[in-house]
C-alpha cells in the first residue's frame, strides 16, 4: 500500500486534514503528518521522520503533499537524507482537495500514478 505524508507549518492543520481524509477514504491508506512540532514551521528532519514512520509500516511508495513552498524544499531535502528503498513522490496539488483525492483513489486499490494524477487534477476542479 502507498502511504501519504502531509507536511505543514502547522501540525494542527494536517492532523485535522488526516482525520478528515481517514473518514472519507475508509482508513485503509497509512497517513502520517509532519511539521509544526514545537512551534510553527517545518524542518527537513521533521519530514525525514515522517518518511521513516511510513517506511516502518511497510509502505511500498510514499506521496508527500504540503502547504507552502518551504515545506516542499524541506521535503526534497528530507528525501536526500532518508534514501528510501521505495519511491517517494512530492505532489504539487492543493493540500486539502489533493490529499482527499489521492487517498480516495488509493483506497480503491489504484496505482500510485493514478493517485498522483487525481491529486494534481484537484487544481482544476472548481468549488462553485
Amino acid at each position, binding site marked *: 500500500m502507498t502511504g501519504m505524508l502531509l507536511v505543514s507549518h502547522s501540525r494542527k492543520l494536517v492532523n485535522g486534514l488526516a482525520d478528515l481524509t481517514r473518514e472519507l477514504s475508509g482508513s485503509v491508506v497509512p497517513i502520517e503528518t509532519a511539521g509544526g512540532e514545537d512551534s510553527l*514551521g517545518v524542518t*527537513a528532519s521533521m519530514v525525514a521522520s515522517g518518511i521513516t514512520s511510513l517506511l516502518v509500516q511497510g509502505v511500498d511508495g510514499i506521496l508527500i503533499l504540503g502547504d507552502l*513552498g*518551504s515545506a516542499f524544499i*524541506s521535503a526534497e531535502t528530507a528525501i536526500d537524507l532518508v534514501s528510501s528503498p521505495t519511491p517517494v513522490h512530492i505532489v504539487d496539488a492543493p493540500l486539502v482537495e489533493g490529499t482527499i483525492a489521492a487517498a480516495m483513489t488509493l483506497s480503491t486499490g489504484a496505482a500510485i500514478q493514478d493517485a498522483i494524477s487525481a491529486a494534481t487534477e484537484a487544481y482544476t476542479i472548481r468549488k462553485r
Partner: protein
Amino acid sequence: MTNTQFQQLWVCFGQAVSKHKDELNQLDAAIGDADHGTNLDRGLQQVLEKMQAASPATLQATCKLVAMTLLSTVGGASGALWGSGLLAAAKVFPDTDTCDDKTLTQAIQAFVDSIEQRGKAVVGDKTMLDVFVPALSSLAQDAEPITVVVPEIAAHAKEWAEATASLQAKKGRAAYLGPRSVGHIDPGATSSALWWQCLGRIIGGSV
C-alpha cells in the same frame, strides 16, 4: 583554508546573526513571518555547541556537522537551503584539515548550485542568491589570491543585500505580496551578507 578557520567562520556567523537577530526579524516581518533572525540564531547556537562537543577534525566533517544541525534546527526554506547547500559543499571539501583556494571556490560553487536547484530561484528573485551569486562570480573570476578577493567581496556584500530592496520577490512567502514586496530588503540576502563578511574577516586574517 584550514578546518580551524572554517570553524571560526561559523563562530563568527553565529555571533553576527545573534547581534543582528532583531534586525533580521524586522526585515522578515515586512515580507515574511518575522522569524528569520530567531530561527537562524537558534540553529547557529546549536552548531556552536555541537562543534565544541564533537570537535570534527576535517573540513568535510565540520561542514557535514553544520549542515545536519541546520537541517534539524532551522525551519522553513532557510534551514533546508543552508543545510542542503552545505551537504553539497561537504562532498567537495576534502576529509583533511586543510584545502587550497580552488577547492574552497568549488565548495562554494556546489553550495550555490544546490541552492539554485532546490529553491528553483535565480538572481533577481530577491533571495540569498542575490548575494551568493555575485560573490561567487567575483571569487571564481578574480585572478588575485583569495586573501585579497574575499575581503573585497565581503566589503560589497551588504550593498548586494540592500539592492534586493528594489526587487520584486519571486520565491517564498514574500512572493505572495507581489509588487508590495518592493521596497523591503530580503532577510535571507542580509544574513548571507553577514556570512560573507565573516568569511572576509577570517580569510583576510582579521579574526
